[in-house]
């Protein structure tokens, strides 16, 4: 359950950015979350509300865009989606493929702010 720490980081990033731009009121935070980032979306969403308490972001929404996991398959010599975050195998030929091409994303992309 490190989702609360992650949620606190997200709130801090948003708060800093809003302050840097002259104290904007943030209504939503948009996040890109990779399937292989080791963060559970539902746990993150529920932690977010807690992390926002007593901050200017209280009442804001966290909007999560999920990014699929892609690994490099040495057999196919191509990037292939993973079947699940627990199985680092090519979805086409089943070969073991542990080199992660995409899916570790954990990034605050943008903020929705009120004019």
């Amino acid at each position, binding site marked *: 359950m490190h989702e609360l*720490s992650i949620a606190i980081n997200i709130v801090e990033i948003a708060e800093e950015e809003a302050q840097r731009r002259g104290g904007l009121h943030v209504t939503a935070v948009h996040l890109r979350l990779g399937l292989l980032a080791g963060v559970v979306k539902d746990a993150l969403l529920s932690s977010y509300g807690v992390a926002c308490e007593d901050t200017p972001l209280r009442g804001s929404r966290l909007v999560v865009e999920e990014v699929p996991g892609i690994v490099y398959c040495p057999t196919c010599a191509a990037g292939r989606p993973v079947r699940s975050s627990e199985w680092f195998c090519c979805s086409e030929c089943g070969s073991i493929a542990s080199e992660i091409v995409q899916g570790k994303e954990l990034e605050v992309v943008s903020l929705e702010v009120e004019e």
Partner: protein
Amino acid sequence: MSPGTRIIEVRQNVLKQNDLVARALRQRFQDAGVFVVSMVSSPGSGKTTLLEKTLTLLQPEFRVAAIVGDLATENDAARLARSHARVKQITTGTLCHLEAVMVQSALEGWRLNELDFLFIENVGNLVCPSSYDLGERMRLVLMSVTEGEDKPLKYPTIFNSADVAVITKMDLAAAAEFDGAAAHRNILAVRPGMAILELSAKSGLGMKAYLDFLRSRRPASA
């Protein structure tokens, strides 16, 4: 999006702050010539036992110290104190992993250039620590023979983030009907080419090879 709102671009990695601290730590460790090894595993895999033996056995030859993370209690630090090495406990409260900034504060007042090896024992957890770089040079992931050979497949992210897999409690392998070949296959499935060591800190089995491995990985200049 309701009228009156607009979008502003941020594009910032959520773990950027941790990564920055970890990078600075790694530089400090390198400048001081201390080789930093972290240990992760599920609770009960034998991190503290292995660490106690490691500190004791390396000490005649090297200056060693350890930082240990735990949710509560200072029991681990008390156990490790028996090795007479310098040990600092980080009590994380409800936090299930160590972060770089905790390592940074634990090191306050330490002269790193007086050390050859520094070990960091993470909180027993196979999920959360994988996301946090602690500035270590080498990450060991431990699994004991009683945990089941499929552990790497269940927790691929942590095995993927580690450099070396250490199979512990080998003295119990027969009793646990441990299938070593399957364990190796599963480790290599999630991390091809990963170094695998088998040992028992209790019986001493494989400890020499493990200590030689640590010695060989520590750069001569460090």
